[in-house]
């Protein structure tokens, strides 16, 4: 291994009793990367984060920080800091003392300490609140104190455990933006745990999708959304339609899949003729047309739901399966009602559909 990663995990396993929390996970996190661990609750994302922080010791496997093994090192001897889910601010200390806590433990001399605390508070725009206690602050302000307290130590890696979960939607959007720009400015890696798929897609350089202790897929947001590897990833991130079919033929990077009476081209290979497969297509990638065309899927509009900027159609395929289709409301919404019950053809670009493995 030539490249030194900020964090490298090698075959990390962790069990709690009989429950496997993290199952043989290997993951490298690059310098100044914003990486998100995404998954449903209980998928092991928080356990993984806690092992990097040092609050849990893996049963087996190794964790390296900046090329040095830290697997069994206690939290206070690791160059990472954490922003906790409920912030975990010290209630008996004021804002200044909270932020200064880590610097004091590191024996930073007083004038340097004052300067660094002031700098950190300025960074999160909390100047003037130094003497407030945490319970005198709003949720957003507490969040910023937690951030300042962790970042003032200039860690190699910042761990964030669902830090935005307790904030209301508007504040959350704002904090998402601030966190992202902060990370770019500081140039350190952020490891961000969330169960919010939208948050993961908008903020991350790379997304790690976890399920039941396993890494399902690791990739940039576009990859995760456009080319999910498994039904789980497709289903967890965004809406998806899964259609069953049989492979008719497969060439270099295009396979023809037979679905009821139609034959649909799908990007992807590694399958053999005659094999049953599942095809994933996102609702917004499907085009509906009222012209009867040969060789494409046919169906009938079963229902419509008006979503403001778009309309969500449910289309009953001739084979009996119900698909969801999302269409931007470019035309007037008046015609919507009249379309229910109409026969439609469904089509999409070959590279919009994904062959699912597993």
């Amino acid at each position, binding site marked *: 291994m030539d490249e030194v990663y900020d964090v490298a995990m090698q075959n990390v396993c962790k069990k709690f009793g009989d429950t496997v929390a993290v199952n043989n996970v290997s993951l490298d996190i690059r310098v100044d990367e914003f990486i998100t661990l995404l998954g449903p609750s209980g998928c092991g994302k928080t356990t993984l984060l806690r092992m990097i922080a040092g609050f849990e010791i893996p049963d087996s496997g190794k964790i390296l920080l900046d090329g040095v093994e830290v697997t069994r090192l206690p939290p206070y001897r690791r160059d990472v800091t954490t922003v906790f889910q409920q912030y975990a601010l010290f209630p*008996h200390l004021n804002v200044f003392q909270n932020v200064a806590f880590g610097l004091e433990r590191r024996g930073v001399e007083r004038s340097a300490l004052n300067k660094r605390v002031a700098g950190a508070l300025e960074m999160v725009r909390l100047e003037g609140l130094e003497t407030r206690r945490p319970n005198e602050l709003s949720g957003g302000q507490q969040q910023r104190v937690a951030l300042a*307290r962790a970042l003032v130590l200039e860690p190699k890696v910042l761990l964030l455990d669902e830090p935005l979960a307790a904030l209301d939607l508007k504040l959350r959007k704002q904090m998402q933006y601030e966190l992202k720009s902060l990370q770019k400015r500081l140039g350190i890696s952020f490891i961000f745990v969330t169960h919010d798929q939208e948050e993961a897609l908008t903020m991350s350089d790379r997304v790690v999708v976890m399920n039941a202790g396993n890494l399902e897929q690791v990739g940039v947001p576009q990859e995760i959304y456009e080319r999910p590897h498994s039904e789980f990833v497709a289903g967890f991130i965004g809406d998806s339609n899964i259609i069953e079919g049989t492979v008719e033929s497969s060439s270099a990077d295009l396979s023809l899949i037979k679905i009821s009476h139609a034959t649909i081209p799908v990007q992807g290979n590694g399958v053999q003729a005659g094999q049953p497969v599942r095809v994933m297509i996102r609702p917004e990638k499907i085009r509906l047309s009222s012209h009867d065309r040969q060789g494409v899927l046919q169906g009938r509009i079963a229902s419509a739901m008006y979503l403001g900027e778009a309309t969500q159609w449910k289309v009953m395929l001739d084979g009996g399966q119900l698909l969801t289709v999302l269409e931007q409301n470019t035309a007037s919404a008046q015609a919507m009602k009249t379309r229910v019950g109409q026969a439609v053809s469904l089509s999409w670009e070959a590279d919009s559909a994904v062959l699912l493995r597993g």
Partner: protein
Amino acid sequence: MKEPQKNRAKTANWLVAPGLFWLLFFIVAPLVIVVIVSFATRGAYGKTLYDFTWSNYARALDALYLSAYWRTIWIALLTTTLCVVVSFPVAYYIALRAPERWKRILLVLTVIPFWTSFLIRTYAWMLLLRSEGVINSALLHSGLIHEPLPLLYNDFAILVGQVYGELPFMILPIYVALERLNTRLLEAAQDLGANRFWTFVKITLPLSRPGLLAGIVLVFIPSLGAFITPDLLGGAKSIMIGNLIQNQFAQLNQPFGSALSLLLTLAVLLLLVIAFRAGLKASELA
């Protein structure tokens, strides 16, 4: 809209009536009597003569009694200190380390002594501590000592009995404070570079201070007024204020006993004021 609420508030006022009645007749009234009696004198055959005088207070400040005050304060301080030293690790273990299903069992074990009268438990200590008692017999039998150790009828015995009796009143409030402690805060401290020692000093200890203060008040004040333990376990020289007061009332010198009681009450009030100044909240004593 406002009327029903007002009515409900009025009804609620009646709920405190029994408690108020109790306080007035069984605490305030006796206290007033004690204040009056403390300025009286003892007549022939123990009769109380109501002639206003400060002489009881003057006598209470006599060197003879002052030494009893100091002894009392000293033993109460030692009792409280030992209780803190013993209780904190126990409360810490129950609140933060014990497996969940053990917690309740350990807490029940902590309060189980209350099921037996304090007097009987003190007699049990006599059986343990006296020269031919359980401890001395065992030590003699094992050959570790050849003479029985003087375990009973001294200050050591008083301390053992007092610490034993007051321990639950220290363990429980500290336990409650530690139980409320958010363990994420301990992780946060370690995350920021504090090792176990500094995490304890900077986070655990300050955040358990309300419980610690409550425990200190709950142990120190009864220790000041203790009279069963010194009476049964202490020696002839180990007299405490509690015994002194008891003796005065037993010898029908009620005026002097009252004056001693009031001085003790004033001392306790003073200590409570200090404790509240130090940040104790009334709700934490409950």
